[in-house]
């Protein structure tokens, strides 16, 4: 009897713990882009020397950059096809020439990232891979040729 009651209490505690656990959502909006992407960010500081942007490629984890700009916007050409997290940080020159102090990174999958709609949300960019070009042609010696342009031209081979 006691063990049944104890079991019920334990189950209730476990259920309560599960319900109270924070839900971790890693989903990010994927923005397909062409051969370049234009990025912008906010910063109220006026003493920033320049910003450095890096792209972190999905799967391989390879970092591309830094891409440097003195403004709060930058156009980055496609480094390689794939999905990328974007990070930007500010650099301030502290008296000694060419020695900088860097801020933490602001990440596109961080808590302060904004979607295109202006609302807070995580995102990544997808530099699409260019597909095969031209029509597909299927041929057989001494026979008819089919190609995609006219969608199956000719008779059955």
């Amino acid at each position, binding site marked *: 009897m006691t063990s049944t009651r104890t079991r019920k209490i334990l189950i209730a505690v476990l259920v309560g713990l599960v319900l109270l656990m924070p839900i971790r959502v890693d989903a990010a909006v994927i923005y397909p882009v062409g051969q370049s992407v234009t990025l912008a960010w906010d910063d109220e500081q006026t003493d920033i020397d320049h910003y450095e942007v890096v792209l972190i490629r999905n799967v391989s984890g390879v970092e591309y950059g830094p891409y440097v700009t003195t403004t709060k916007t930058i156009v980055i050409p496609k480094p390689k096809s794939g999905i990328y997290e974007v990070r930007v940080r500010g650099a301030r020159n502290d008296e000694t020439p060419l020695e900088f102090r860097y801020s933490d990174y602001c990440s596109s999958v961080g808590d302060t990232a904004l979607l295109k709609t202006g609302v807070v949300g995580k995102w990544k960019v997808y530099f699409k891979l260019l*597909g095969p070009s031209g029509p*597909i*042609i299927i041929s*057989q010696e001494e026979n008819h040729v089919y190609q995609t342009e006219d969608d199956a031209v000719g008779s059955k081979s």
Partner: protein
Amino acid sequence: MYIKPKTMQWGASPDPDVMTYVARWAIPPDAIIYDAAINPGYDVGKVTQCALPLPGMPGFDGELTIGLTARDDVGNESDPVEITVPFDFLAPSPPTGLQVI
């Protein structure tokens, strides 16, 4: 049994990141499934032509839709190009009743 092969040709992707091309197929009116987790397709290599039928293609006589995508080093795939054409991948039945007369 001998199935006379056909040749499928296409133009190379202008993207320098292409590592290989992947072919998938479906029998109309079914659409080709391009989800690599569900339908990995057949990796034809970094080429611009290959012989048909590909391994795994159905041995049948009828229309077949073939889709071709480019794939990069981490598995990203391009938009596909497709063609639907009639194929005959069935060899005729062998003769029977062979005898000396």
